[in-house]
């Protein structure tokens, strides 16, 4: 079981001396990201809730991107994806990414369409 671990994160800018040091480093990073998320969720800064990008509040984009960052580090360092062969990495990640993006895209468009039907057409939910 002589595993060798890749000990650098952030594209090699941060190198750890041992695997245990890397685990704690990733934990600190994940905690910081979570604290930022919670703080933003409580404060809800005006400039982030006012501005919209692609029909969604900027704040929600920040949340989703931070979530994906967290997901990356959990998979790569806690689930040891960083040490696996690139073939395994791609098989897992791309299968998920393609299917999930497709599903989300199609369901959200459909949901928005039904919302418009309720809002602008004769079917009303107003009692």
């Amino acid at each position, binding site marked *: 079981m002589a595993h060798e671990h890749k000990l650098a994160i952030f594209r090699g800018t941060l190198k750890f001396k041992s695997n245990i040091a890397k*685990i704690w480093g990733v934990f600190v990073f994940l905690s910081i990201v979570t604290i930022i998320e919670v703080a933003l*969720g409580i404060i809800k800064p005006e400039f982030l809730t006012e501005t919209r990008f692609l029909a969604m509040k900027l704040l929600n984009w920040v949340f989703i991107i*931070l979530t994906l960052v*967290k997901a990356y580090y959990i*998979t790569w360092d806690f*689930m040891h994806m960083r040490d696996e062969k690139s073939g*395994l990495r791609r098989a*897992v990640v791309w299968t998920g990414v393609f299917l*999930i993006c497709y599903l989300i895209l199609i369901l959200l468009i459909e949901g928005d369409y039904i919302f418009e039907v309720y809002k602008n057409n004769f079917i009303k*939910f107003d009692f």
Partner: protein
Amino acid sequence: MDTTVAKTGTEGKTWGGGNRPLNASYGKLMMWFFIVSDALTFSGFIAAYGFSRFKFIDAWPIADEVFTHVPFLHGVPAPMYYVAFMTFILIFSSVTMVLAVDAGHKMQQRKVIWYMFFTIIGGAIFVGSQAWEWATFIKGDYGAVETKGGKILQFLDTDGNRVALAEFSEKLPTTRDIHVEQNGVWYEAEPTVTTYSYEEVKAGFLANENLLVRTQYYDDNGEPTVLTREESVAKILNDGKLVVEGANLRHNEYGHPLFADFFFFITGFHGFHVLTGVLINIIIFFNVVIGTYERRGSYEMVEKVGLYWHFVDLVWVFVFTFFYLV
């Protein structure tokens, strides 16, 4: 036997057998298969949640107003803090799990035992917190009135503070016949009896001039619409139908019932994963204690259950974002 087995000439080559595809053992690869399919299941649920939310985008409950409770802090509105705590517990139990895997690679039995133990404790705290969260959500806090169309009306005073039903409802003298099997169709059950009947809430509302009704629809500022006193009275008199306290699969005092449905289903399914994760962790824990993997010479089972445990953590990261933050 040697003479009957045809040599293919591929021994030692990639497809000749004895090789490990993708350099991962059979068990680990199968765990990855399971994780990918389970990830697709969860994303199906979360995408369905997104669909329903987009369908009722102008009337979806705000999570900040729903999950405001922290144990032992009664009546102190503290949105997010408890879920944040739960998130930390789960991330931390992931850390102890990965430390257990690391100790396993180095064949340090005692360390694996301790780290597995902390992981199990973390998982148990998380499941317990989720049970508490469910109980609080089911119990509800302010109470509301549901209209004939299934929409929720909540009560505010003129300063914009929420008012609980108990604060203004009048106690009316009522007699209630309890439905028993011998008096009618046996399979017809009584509807749930709420603390206050609709008539009592209505009488109390009409008697208190400073009460207003808030609908679940958002106004232009993205806040739920507050009606004027005249509109509120008209709404209660014309449309009101029943009292809702707390949330269940049919009624939800916080807003759209689908919100409660998805909350119960997705966090329930995730909580079930955590529960099974804790159980599998306990099994592996005892295997480590009795030295099974020490004799086997490999702690790979710890690594495999670790993969599952991190996956549970990973799903929670997404559930946290889409239920509590976005």
